[in-house]
């Protein structure tokens, strides 16, 4: 019987493997091979058109003494910290205000307006903010001058003291993004009964926020944290496009360091070692969070 064998009996079917062949040829050649090759070449002094001698852990030993590399990690940690604190605060408040609106139509219009910046290309947003920070004609300095606060005007991206924070403040108020969306669906899924019960018991809006909304969003926070760790690497685009890691390495990020080592320094083996380290660290952090959150999920069940 053909239709029963479809799902139940496991057997070797040449035609199926033939159908999967294109998928696996592409993935093996352009995803698995580079990943594994990068790992193995991190133990070599990798050169083009010359012999590449095996040098053991030398690349990794050099990395330990690479101040720029660790400085870059400091920067990315700061961005991650900002990404899971201040960059969540305004979206969360906006969601709370939005779901308190009684008029559905106004709610929809405002939600669309708040999320609208998502529809613009990342690079356009980055360059627009580059213009906002422009020392001469930029929006920020022009506004400060006209408000009589000329003394506060800065070369925002050109000064090592302000450059990193200027990059972090790109996209302020950070509402058009995944956190807003996740908080919104999270609170909308809770169901109105709980909120109505709380209102009947005389819980104030503030009380409700701390005692009901925040605890119920726990799962969402965990998810957003994993995504923040994985996505933090993307932040390198902003720095590469606007500052290329400068001034004075003030906005150096791991990815920019890797590219500089490879493309400017020609040290491909070292770049492979740095990439591998980056991968291992991301992997460990996300696995750790995954395991921790899985443990908590089981606890929830046993309760």
């Amino acid at each position: 019987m053909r239709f029963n064998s479809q799902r139940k009996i496991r057997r070797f079917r040449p035609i199926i493997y033939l159908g999967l062949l294109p998928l696996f040829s592409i993935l093996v050649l352009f995803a698995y091979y580079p990943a594994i090759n990068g790992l193995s070449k991190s133990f070599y002094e990798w050169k083009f058109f010359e012999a590449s001698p095996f040098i053991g852990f030398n690349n990794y030993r050099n990395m330990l003494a690479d101040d720029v590399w660790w400085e870059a990690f400091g920067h990315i940690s700061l961005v991650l910290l900002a990404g899971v604190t201040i960059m969540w605060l305004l979206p969360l408040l906006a969601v709370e205000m939005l779901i308190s609106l009684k008029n559905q139509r106004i709610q929809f219009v405002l939600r669309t307006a708040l999320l609208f910046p998502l529809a613009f290309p990342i690079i356009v947003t980055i360059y627009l903010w580059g213009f906002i920070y422009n020392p001469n004609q930029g929006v920020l300095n022009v506004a400060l001058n006209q408000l009589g606060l000329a003394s506060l005007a800065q070369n925002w991206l050109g000064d090592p003291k302000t450059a990193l924070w200027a990059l972090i403040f790109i996209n302020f108020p950070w509402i058009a993004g995944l956190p807003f969306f996740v908080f919104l669906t999270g609170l909308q899924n809770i169901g109105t009964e709980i909120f109505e019960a709380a209102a009947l018991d005389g819980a104030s809006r503030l009380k409700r926020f701390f005692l009901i909304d925040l605890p119920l969003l726990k799962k969402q926070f965990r998810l957003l944290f994993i995504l923040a760790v994985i996505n933090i690497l993307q932040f390198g685009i902003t720095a590469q496009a606007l500052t290329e890691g400068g001034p004075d390495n003030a906005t150096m990020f791991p990815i920019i360091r890797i590219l500089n080592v490879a493309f400017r320094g020609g040290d491909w083996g070292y770049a492979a070692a740095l990439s591998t380290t980056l991968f291992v660290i991301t992997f460990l952090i996300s696995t750790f969070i995954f395991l921790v959150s899985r443990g908590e999920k089981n606890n929830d069940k046993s309760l």
Partner: protein
Amino acid sequence: MTSLSKTARPRRNNRIRVQQSTLVAILSFLAFIGLFPYLFMVLTSLKNNQQIVDSYWGLPIPAHFENYVAAWDQTKNYFITTFIVVSATVIAVLLLGLLSGFLFARFSFLGRNFLFTVVGLLLMVPSIAALIPLFVLSKDLNMLNTIWVLIIPSIAANLILAVILFRNFIDSIQQELFDAAQVFGATNTQIFRYIVTPLSFPIIGTVSLLTMINVYNDFFWPLLTVTDDNLRTVAIGIQFFQGQNATDYGGLMAGYTLASVPLLLLFAFLSKYFLAGISGGLATPDK
């Protein structure tokens, strides 16, 4: 207050109205800050440098549409390249993703779970970690500075999530449909064409949109692999264009606005798939 007197009710209504209006005002203000850079971009794109100095915040009167003509002249190749790369990637991702998703979801074969895990594991490798070896591979294959170096790696990168989304979706289609089709003598090819593909339409929309956004926004890969100006994608071309027009702010803003149009159109037509895609993409790693 034990009972609502005749004066208390309107007062309470008034308080709610004030409260609601305050919320609307704050949210509108936040939305305005978020949208301000883009409003400023569109207004400034129609000004010349003199107007930018004279009326920095004002409306562009008279409007200088020639900024757009100049920007289009300098960037049109980037749009053509991007169009080719995006279309080729989306078509390949849909064909291979749908076929592989169908095979993984509806057939039993030796090594099915192992092979599916092999695909899923790649989700854990951040693309940036494989950038250097992938570049060397493309160099060894003599693909640098060709259209293929833009297309093939982005097919590989976008196929991973696509296969997983397609498999999960096709897996959730009711078995009765397949049984019925087979009773009527439909071949597997016919099932794929007339049942699986039409039913998968929503997920096809999601995968297409996510792939198009990813490829359009891809920055580091085209930056590293392409130096021929005709092969620059919009994301990279805009950087070059920026360097060429460093102080012609009106022209720059016109270029940025043009670069935004394709994604704005995509969102206008496909935004419901985007929301579905976010929740779908979120559901996957949680499983």
